[in-house]
C-alpha cells in the first residue's frame, strides 16, 4: 500500500503528526492556567493601532469540542492509514474500496448478464435491451476507432457491412474481440520485381474489383500476382484465416486507387486490433459480439 522507499520518512511523518496533536493538547492545558495582568476595564494592556485586547474567555463547550477532535484524530489514525507505513486497523485503501464497489455492482447486474450469456449470440442480437447494453459498451470502447456508427474509417474496418477480414460468424467475432488481431502484410516489392512490375500488379489488383485501371498493365501484371496469391488467394478473394483482405470487392481499408496500392506493395502494412479480454468479462464480450453481429445481420 505505501510507497515509502526508506525507513526514515514514515517515522518523520508519524512524529510530526502525533507531535502536532500532542502540542495542541499541551497548549490547551497550558492556557487553562495562565498569568495575565488585567486592567480594570477587562483589557490586558496589549494594544495595536488603538485596538485593545480584551479578556474574552473561550466558552467551555468549545474546549469540549476541541478535545473531541483530538480523540477523533487519534481514533482515525488508529483505524485508517495516516502514520507512515501503518495500514490502519481496517486496512482501508482507495483501491480496495473501488474493488468492493465494483464487485457489488457486478453482483447486482450478474443475473442480467447471466441470462444473456446463456443464450446464443443470434438470439441475444434480437433483444433490444441487450443490444442497448452492447451499444453502450461499443460507444464507450470501440467507437474510438470504428466510429460511433461502426462504419470505420481508413485503417479501421467497417463492422456494419458483410465484408469481414477474419470472418463474420459470432464465434469469429468473439475471437477477434477477446484476443485481438494482428494483420500483417510484408513489403512485397522485392518479390514482385522492379518498379514497372509493381505498377503492373497494382493495375491487375484494380482490375479484380472492376475499378478504373490500365488494362495493358493489368495483363502484364497478372503473372506477378502469384506472389500475392499466397495470402490473397489465386482469385484475390482474400483469406479469412489470416485476415488477408478480399481484393475483388470495392472496399479499400487503406485507401483506393493505384497510388495507394503501390504504396502498400512497397511498404506492407501492420494493423492491430487490441485484445479486450483484460477489460471485459466474458459476458460483456458476449453482448458486444451480439451487437456487432447484429449490425450486419438484421
Amino acid at each position, binding site marked *: 500500500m505505501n510507497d515509502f522507499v526508506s525507513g526514515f520518512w514514515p517515522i518523520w511523518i508519524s512524529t510530526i503528526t502525533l507531535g502536532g496533536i500532542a502540542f495542541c493538547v499541551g497548549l490547551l492545558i497550558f492556557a*487553562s492556567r495562565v*498569568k*495575565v*495582568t*488585567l*486592567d480594570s476595564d477587562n483589557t490586558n494592556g496589549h494594544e495595536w493601532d488603538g485596538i485593545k485586547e480584551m479578556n474574552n*474567555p473561550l466558552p467551555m*463547550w468549545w474546549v469540549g469540542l476541541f478535545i473531541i477532535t483530538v480523540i477523533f484524530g487519534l481514533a482515525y489514525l488508529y483505524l485508517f492509514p495516516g502514520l507512515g507505513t501503518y495500514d490502519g486497523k481496517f486496512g482501508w485503501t482507495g483501491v480496495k474500496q473501488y474493488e468492493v464497489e465494483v464487485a457489488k455492482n457486478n453482483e447486482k447486474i450478474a443475473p442480467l448478464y447471466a441470462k444473456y450469456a446463456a443464450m446464443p449470440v443470434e438470439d441475444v442480437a434480437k433483444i433490444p435491451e441487450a443490444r442497448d447494453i452492447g451499444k453502450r459498451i461499443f460507444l464507450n470502447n470501440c467507437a474510438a476507432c470504428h466510429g*460511433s456508427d461502426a*462504419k470505420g474509417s481508413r485503417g479501421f474496418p467497417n463492422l456494419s457491412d458483410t465484408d469481414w477480414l477474419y470472418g463474420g460468424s459470432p464465434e469469429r467475432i468473439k475471437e477477434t474481440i477477446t484476443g485481438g488481431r494482428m494483420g500483417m502484410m510484408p513489403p512485397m516489392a522485392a518479390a514482385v520485381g522492379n518498379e514497372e512490375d509493381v505498377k503492373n500488379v497494382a493495375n491487375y489488383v484494380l482490375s479484380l474489383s472492376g475499378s478504373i485501371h490500365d488494362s495493358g498493365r493489368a495483363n502484364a501484371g497478372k503473372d506477378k500476382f502469384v506472389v500475392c496469391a499466397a495470402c490473397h488467394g489465386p482469385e484475390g478473394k482474400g483469406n479469412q484465416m489470416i485476415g488477408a483482405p478480399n481484393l475483388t470487392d470495392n472496399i479499400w481499408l487503406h485507401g483506393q486507387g493505384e497510388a495507394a496500392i503501390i504504396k502498400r506493395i512497397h511498404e506492407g502494412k501492420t494493423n492491430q486490433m487490441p485484445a479486450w479480454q483484460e477489460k471485459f468479462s466474458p459476458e460483456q464480450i458476449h453482448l458486444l459480439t451480439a451487437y456487432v453481429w447484429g449490425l450486419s445481420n438484421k
Partner: protein
Amino acid sequence: MSDTKQNAVNKTTIPEQEVVLSLYRSEDKIYARHVSGFFTNWRWVMVWATQLFFYGVPWLQWDGRQAMLFDLEGMRFYVFGLIFHPQDLIYLAFLLIVSALSLFLFTAIAGRLWCGYTCPQTVYTEIYMWMEQKIEGDRIARMRLDDSKWNLNKITRKSLKQFAWIGFGLWTGVTFVGYFTPMRELVPSLLQFQAGGWETFWVCFYGFATYGNAGYMREQVCKYMCPYARFQSAMFDGDTMTVTYDETRGEPRGSRSKKAGENANGLGSCIDCSICVQVCPTGIDIRNGLQYECIGCGACIDACDDVMDKMGYAKGLIKYTTQNGMESRWSRQQMFARLLRPRVLIYTTILLIMIVGMGVGIYYKPDFRLDVLRDRSVMARYTNDGNIENVYNLKLENETEVARDYELKVTGLPTLAVHFSDNNSQQLKALKPFEKRNVIVEIQVPEAETRAGSHKIFFELTEIETKETIKEKSVFIVPSN
C-alpha cells in the same frame, strides 16, 4: 457606535493587577424574560410563516408525486412543476447569489433583520423558549427551579420539557428527511421501525441538532459559531437602521418613583429597571451601544416601550434608528429619505437583475438536453456515391416525467443529407421518462459542392409536443486532397 461612554469608562482606570485566570469559562445560562409587543409579534408571524412552509411542503403532492422532493439517488430535484438535474447547477448558483444579495440589502437597510426574525436558529430558539416558558414558567420561576433541590415538581417539569423538546426535535428531523425521502412512505416506515439506516441516522442527527442548538446552545451559536455576526459590520453604514439606545435622552440613568417625573433630580429617562437586559436573548446590555452579539431582534425595544408606557413617558428610548439619525436627531422621514442611497440602490438593482434573470432562465429552460459529439476518430469518409460523410453522436436526454418524441433538423450547409445509423429514424421517438439515448447520425455532403476545411453546422432538435428547440453548434470537416 458611539464611544463616548467607552471613553468615560477608560478614563477612570484602576491600577493594573496581576491575576491568574483561565482562558476558558463556562458561560452563564441566560434566562430571557418573556416579552410581548410589536416586534415580538412580527417575529411570531415569521416563525409561523417559515415553519408552516417547512413542515407543510413535504406533504403536498403534485402530479402523483411529492411536490418538493430532492431525490439524491436519481439525481433529480423536483420543485412543484419543475425538475432540476445536476446540469442545472447554475440555477442553484443563482439562488445562492440572490439569497446573499437579499441578505446584503436587508442588512444595509435595517441591520440584522435575518438574524432577528427569520434565521432558523432564532426561530427554533423562539419555539423552544416558548415550550420552556409554558412548562417551567417565566424568568424568575425558571431561575428558582434550577436552584431548587430535585423534588417531584422539578422532576415533573424538567422531564416534561425534555419530552416536548425531544419530540419537537425528532419531528423536525423527520420533516427534514422528508424532503429527500418521500414523506408519505417515510413516516409509516419510521413508525414500524423499518426505515433505512441512513434515514434513521439523519432523522436522529437533525433532530439532535435542533434540540441541542435551540434548547441549549442558543445565543452561543450566534456569538461563537455564526460567521455572519463577524462580517455584518462590513454591510452596515451610518444610515443602517439598528436597535439603538437613546443615550442623550436616557442618561444619567437612575430609579425614581413614578410621581417624580421624567427628568427629576437631573436624571435621564432611563429608570435603570434592567428589563431590557433581562429580555435579551444574547444577554447583553443594549445601553452600552451596538455590539456584535446584538442580533437585532427588537425584544429590548418592546420591553422598554412597555416600561415607558407604564411610567407615562414617551416611547422610543430604545428604538430602530440610524447612527446618523441618532447623532443629528433626525425625524423618521429624514431617515427614510436616506434609504435611496447608492449602496441600497446598487444592491436592489443587482438583486432585481438576478431575480429576473433567474426567472426568465427557468421559464425558458428546455425540458430535454442535447449534446452533439462529433466522432473525432473518423475525420471524414468518402461514400461510394461521391459524398463526404461525418459522424455525430447525439446524446439526448428526456428530462420530463412523460414519454417524448423529437425531430431533428440540421442546417449550415446548402445541401446536406441526414442519415440515422441502422437507417432507423425512429431513434428520436418515444423516449421514456428520464431516458438517456445515444443517437448516431451521419451527415453527408456532396464532394463537389464544398471547399476543404471545417464548416459550422447546427443541430436543431425540437420536441414535437411543446415545440421547444435546442440548437447545438458543431462542425463538418471536409478533408483536402
